[in-house]
């Protein structure tokens, strides 16, 4: 944070005005979260009360139980699915993308720039442009309705996370690699024992991003999965909402419990998150 400016507005009044403005903007940004949270603990009638009530009174804790026991919204099962989906993608991304990122960031080889340029093209390619044939192939293999089409591609890597990780790999000092090479270490050993420990923090950052992206992914599971029991939470919530639009308190409890794990994950690791962003690599 060395480049950060000192507060320019020296006067106390200026400082006060600044914080008043920032707090007002913050309130606008937080309102949907707040409304979701209080609505999750209200009855339907209380949600739409006029005048607006800003705190649930009484707090309807029973809403949690009534969400968890519904059979048209198997929340627990879908929660487990989401954990499985996001967790496996995050682990695969860390492994597969670090291979390619090491190659792009630390090794010199002919064709590297071309392959990396193609990676950037793949990154900018709209998903749908390549999606239909891939879907048809999985459907031919009879694997739609399972998580195979959702997870397997990450065995090979992902353009965005390779791009992100490469920036960090580029920061590994070259002398370290050369020294290891002189000692006769194999390239695989250099990657695993010397470079990987150097980028441990970036790997955690990429893992966190992959977790959030996958937890919130909607399009792919919507298309590949067919029955309620196999949905992740994003699709489960959508299906419930589109069929039972009037049961707002259940929808809100569902939304609240879907968002909560990611918000909690972020709050515990936000330093890492923000470091990941500021180095998304713009050069």
């Amino acid at each position, binding site marked *: *944070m060395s480049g950060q400016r000192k507060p320019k507005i020296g006067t106390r009044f200026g400082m006060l005005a600044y914080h008043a403005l920032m707090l007002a903007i913050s309130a606008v940004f937080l309102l*949907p979260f707040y409304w979701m949270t209080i*609505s999750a603990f209200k009855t339907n009638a209380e949600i739409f009360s006029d005048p607006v009530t800003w705190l649930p009174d009484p707090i309807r804790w029973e809403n949690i139980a009534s969400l968890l026991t519904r059979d048209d919204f198997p929340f627990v099962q879908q929660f487990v699915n989401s954990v499985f989906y996001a967790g496996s993608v995050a682990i695969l991304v860390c492994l597969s993308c670090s291979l390619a990122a090491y190659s792009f960031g630390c090794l010199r080889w002919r064709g590297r720039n071309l392959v990396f340029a193609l990676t950037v093209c793949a990154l900018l390619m709209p998903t749908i442009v390549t999606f239909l044939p*891939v879907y048809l192939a999985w459907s031919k293999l009879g694997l739609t309705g399972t998580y195979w089409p959702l997870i397997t591609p990450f065995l090979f890597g992902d353009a965005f996370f*390779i791009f992100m990780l490469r920036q960090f790999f580029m920061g590994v000092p070259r002398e370290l690699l050369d020294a290891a090479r002189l000692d006769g270490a194999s*390239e695989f050993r250099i990657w695993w024992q010397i470079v990987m420990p150097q980028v441990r923090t970036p790997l955690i950052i990429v893992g966190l991003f992959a977790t959030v992206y996958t937890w919130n992914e909607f399009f792919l599971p919507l298309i590949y999965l067919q029955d309620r029991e196999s949905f992740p939470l994003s699709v489960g919530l959508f299906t419930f909402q589109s069929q039972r639009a009037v049961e707002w308190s259940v929808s809100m409890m569902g*939304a609240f419990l879907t968002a909560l794990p990611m918000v909690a994950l972020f709050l515990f690791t936000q330093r890492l998150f923000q470091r990941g962003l500021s180095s*998304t690599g713009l050069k």
Partner: protein
Amino acid sequence: MPGKSPSVGAAPPPRRNRKARRGEARAGLLFALPWIVGMTLFVAIPLVLTFYIAQTKFQIVGAPKWVGLQNYEALWTDPAFWKSAQNTLLFAVISVPLKLVIALGLALLLNRATALSGFYRTVFYLPFLMPAVAGSVVFMLLLTPNAGPVNIALEAMGLNPPDWLLDPKAALWTLILLSLWPLGVETLVFLGGLQNIPKDVSEAADLDSPKRWHKLVWVTLPLITPMVLFNLVIGIIYSFQVFTQAIVIGGTTGTPAEATLMYMVVLYRAAFRYFNMGLAAAMATVLFVVVLILTLLIFQTARSWVHYEGGER
């Protein structure tokens, strides 16, 4: 040591170097190989196949039948195609620049060290973590006509608020408004750029001109143009693919009155409701061409307005 003649002195190191370099080159390719295979399997081949399927009649079952440009002709006369293209274009053209301006404003506001800086940063970032489905459902509740809190509050202030997502005239604008909520990523990318501006440059600008907006226009903005480019390209590409918010709020028909019907929703409908893969692939191809042209155009003009420090790239 396999070196044959250590007495020559200068000879062995280059030789070992060359060998090492060859080893490094082989390793480089080997480490990139899984990804090269992945790109071929999941990007290159499907891309070509999409172009091919777009010229066939293909209903998933049975073999694709070659029909030439018929799918494109069908699109040309399909009102849903034009309506969704128009909605999506309007959405992208308004929401992306607006989002960039607001994100930049927030980043400028955030760019000072106060006791609450961390808190503000967290607050602006949080909406990005909200699953798009959950966020959209919450906004549907907040903006419910008559009974929702936003309208109750606005009516209490004596205003006459619109029906937001239920009014065919307002629905698309509401969707644009909602798309401005998750702008934490853009803001933090800008903030990163602002904080990378060297202190001496910033201070020199302060001395040169006492007017703050001079510094903003002539020093700060040029120095963060790479971030503007990054956010612009990513923003345009993503907003052309807007899907989740649109289908949660408008379903597959873009209620009310197709006001929220987006390009990806029509494509989804064609492929997975009507199983018309040929038509869907034609739509995907059109999207590809449009995004390609736009991206090239942006990168082309970027040469004249993006400033890279030290002439990088």
